[in-house]
């Protein structure tokens, strides 16, 4: 959606830019106003196109600012999420450190059991999945 909107905006800018150039060119071949002080039509059209172009540029820059703010906000949230993840890892490491001996023993027993081909005290991933899914 944003991409289509951006393409439409680019097309409008291009059309307005060409229209402004053409009508300014046409206006410059005559006087901008006649001796009575009335503006010639091409000059009026050029002025309208120029105003439209300025308006479009203004809208465009406002949208760019909004997009930049959104990006900044997303970046900030991602950073906070990453910090929380790091903190959780840090906590998990702290807790695991308290029971290093226990984890070492379990590992040693498991290695022996695997080597001996007797894994009754261990669950494979498949067995675990079956347990959870009932």
């Amino acid at each position, binding site marked *: 959606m944003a991409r289509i909107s951006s393409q439409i905006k680019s097309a409008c800018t291009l059309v307005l830019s060409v229209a402004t150039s053409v009508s300014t060119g046409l206006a410059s071949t005559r006087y901008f106003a006649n001796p009575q002080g009335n503006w010639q039509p091409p000059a009026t059209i050029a002025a309208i196109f120029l105003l439209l172009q300025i308006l479009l540029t203004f809208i465009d820059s406002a949208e760019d600012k909004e997009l930049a703010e959104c990006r900044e906000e997303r970046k900030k949230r991602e950073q906070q999420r990453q910090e929380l993840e790091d903190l959780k890892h840090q*906590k998990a490491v702290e807790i695991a450190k308290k029971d290093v001996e226990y984890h070492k023993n379990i*590992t040693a027993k498991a290695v022996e059991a695997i080597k001996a081909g007797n894994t009754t005290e261990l669950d494979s991933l498949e067995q675990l999945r079956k347990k959870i899914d009932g």
Partner: protein
Amino acid sequence: MANQLFVDKAASTQLESFPISEQRAVVETLERLSSDPLGNSTEVSQADDLHVAVVDNIGIVFSYLPDEESVIVTGFEELPRAAAAQELEASPA
């Protein structure tokens, strides 16, 4: 290549005490760990090949034995949910 992954029975029973959504999230993480044990984990102690991975608020403690191409899950830890968030809020931006 995927490693063989084993879960200690006591740890397996411990996992069953967690809510079902967390159990499923853990199993998904274990599937990832079996193919990439060091990808999303943190080392506890280099000498013991001990690592932790975190999913939601559960810490998974496991040993990665590259020579045996095995991952052995030795336990699960319930991380303090509120404390983690509070510490993050208190930490300078």
